[in-house]
């Protein structure tokens, strides 16, 4: 298990973490995937979820809401639209994210009546958000209308 790969997690506002890791659990749009050293080059979308890093110094978890991950021979980079260390996410952050997802879902139901695919996408984002809240012990009930 001495094998490591360079990993970068960046959001538009800053670089959250950078360094060698043993493996990364990436919440891909099509399902979770674990990237280890010498993974085949892949680009995938992210869904809202938990990104778990296992490095030489132990495990670490970050919350991401969307973006994409690029796995190449040079390393793994995750470009998250919004990301924060799991311990720094408060109920307040989560409420806002959940509210945004809910609003987007309600809007999608009205505007994309004839395109069920887009409504389903919005519903999935919302479901992912709720599942993520369960996972990090934040209450998804608040703000529910």
């Amino acid at each position, binding site marked *: 298990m001495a094998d490591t790969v360079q990993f970068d997690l960046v959001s*538009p*506002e800053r670089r959250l973490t950078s360094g060698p890791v043993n493996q990364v659990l990436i919440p891909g749009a*099509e399902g979770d*995937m674990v990237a280890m050293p010498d993974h085949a*080059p*892949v*680009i995938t*979308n992210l869904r809202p979820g938990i990104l778990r890093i296992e490095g030489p110094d132990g495990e670490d978890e970050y919350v991401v809401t969307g973006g994409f991950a*690029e796995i*190449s021979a040079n390393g793994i980079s995750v470009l998250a639209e919004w990301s924060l260390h799991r311990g720094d996410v408060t109920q307040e952050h989560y409420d806002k994210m959940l509210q945004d997802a809910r609003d987007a879902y309600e809007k999608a139901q009205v505007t994309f009546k004839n395109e069920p695919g887009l409504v389903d996408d919005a519903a999935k984002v919302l479901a992912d958000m709720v599942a993520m809240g369960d996972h990090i012990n934040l209450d998804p009930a608040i703000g529910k209308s």
Partner: protein
Amino acid sequence: MPNLKDLKNRIASVKSTRKITKAMQMVAAAKLRRAQDAAESSRPYTERFNAVMAGLSASVGDSESAPRLLAGTGSDQTHLLVVMTAERGLCGGFNGNIAKLAKSHADKLLAEGKTVKIITVGKKGRDALRRGYSELLTDHVDLTDVKHIGYDDAKSIADDLLARFDDGQFDVATIFYSQFENVVSQIPTAQQIIPASYEAKEDEQDAGGTLYDYEPDEQAILADLLPRGVATQIFSALLENAASEQGARMSAMDNATRNAGEMIDKLTIQYNRTRQAVITNELIEIISGAEAL
């Protein structure tokens, strides 16, 4: 001959102006460092993003099913100019230069018979474009209350643009902002963001060299990433603009401080001369009075 008291007041007032400009220069220097840090820390994301987009759009861009955000609507009749300036003045030619570039661009498009719409971000740009272009101004984004530009600010502008684009309100969108070169030079720049054009940089050989697997597939990823790309480009433009504004203000205030110093020197010499002249005059009067006796 100017009055001694007037001169003294004048010197005092220039001195206090110099204090103000000096303080503004130092504030701008501190803010500049922060703005530069912000621009610096957003760079890894932007660079990575553009590299991936370059690879993606190269493989999908030519196909007929390319998304409209990449391929365009097929016409270029209606142009939307997004003019980003500062909320405050007193920063030299910063706002003026951006407005001038936007104006010449608008004039050129109007001369070609295109329809031009303008959205302004920042109060100063709106003020400058109101004269002569008021019928083109369609909207204004107010960032007066925003102390530190966050990705959310850029995203809300981008969402607004995308909604207008989906609505068919324009075909081509161009953003105008100032690229931060260094403290003394900021380059007003026009950048087309819709339809997007991502070009691989020369030093990014791996962008085309690596064959990626795409999950779910290239089309879906591109459709997801293109709207983000608009937000990313607006975000980096806003950050560049913030750094440029502080840089421009810093050098403008530095000049103002120096000019005030020169003026104080000049006025002090004039004051001393006048005072001496008054003394000499008095002496002459006393002496000639004594001689007359």
